[in-house]
């Protein structure tokens, strides 16, 4: 039974390879190059944002960041949560769409840094200075210099 199933799967794989036209292969390669470039861009914007957060927190401190009027910390937290949700969906669907490991790893790395920024913003919103400092330390540890 297993033997027949293995043969069937191999045959299906060979047929699929034959059916896939040269044009499809070229399109697929273009998609992969575009995905690679855009995943890097996402990662880059996340780490650019985290560098700015670290710089603001270090230059102006906890109380300095609290006085921000608009866009205030609530708006920033909302943007972080939306960004984080989109990256979650991308990570989950990457496996089904056979996106390469390197791209998934970059997205996971970006997602982790976003979570640290969310922790920092939540601590600021809750007026919790010690959690703010811990989140800032974590953020700095992972920052790209």
């Amino acid at each position, binding site marked *: 039974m297993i033997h027949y199933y293995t043969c069937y799967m191999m045959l299906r794989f060979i047929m699929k390879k034959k059916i896939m036209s040269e044009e499809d292969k070229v399109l697929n390669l273009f998609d992969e190059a*575009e*995905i690679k470039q855009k995943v890097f861009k*996402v990662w880059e914007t996340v780490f650019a*944002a985290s560098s700015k957060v670290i710089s603001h927190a270090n230059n102006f*401190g906890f109380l300095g960041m609290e006085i921000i009027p608009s866009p205030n910390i609530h708006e920033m937290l909302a943007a972080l949560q939306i960004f984080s949700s989109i990256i979650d969906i991308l990570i989950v669907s990457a496996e089904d769409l056979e*996106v390469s490991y390197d791209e998934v790893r970059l997205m996971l790395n970006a997602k982790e840094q976003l979570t640290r920024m969310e922790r920092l913003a939540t601590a600021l919103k809750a007026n919790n200075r010690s959690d703010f400092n811990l989140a800032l330390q974590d953020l700095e540890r992972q920052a790209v210099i």
Partner: protein
Amino acid sequence: MNTTINLIAPTNKKEFIQLLDEAICIGKALNDQLDTIGQFLEENASLSVL
């Protein structure tokens, strides 16, 4: 941010790329927000307590 975001899981690589574009837009908006915050903090540096 007054943008509509499509949060449906992509079913093919084209949709995946579209969602990546949306992520890049949100990332840029977040960076713009942070630049505005930075500008405000610099202009009001005397108000901050380190």
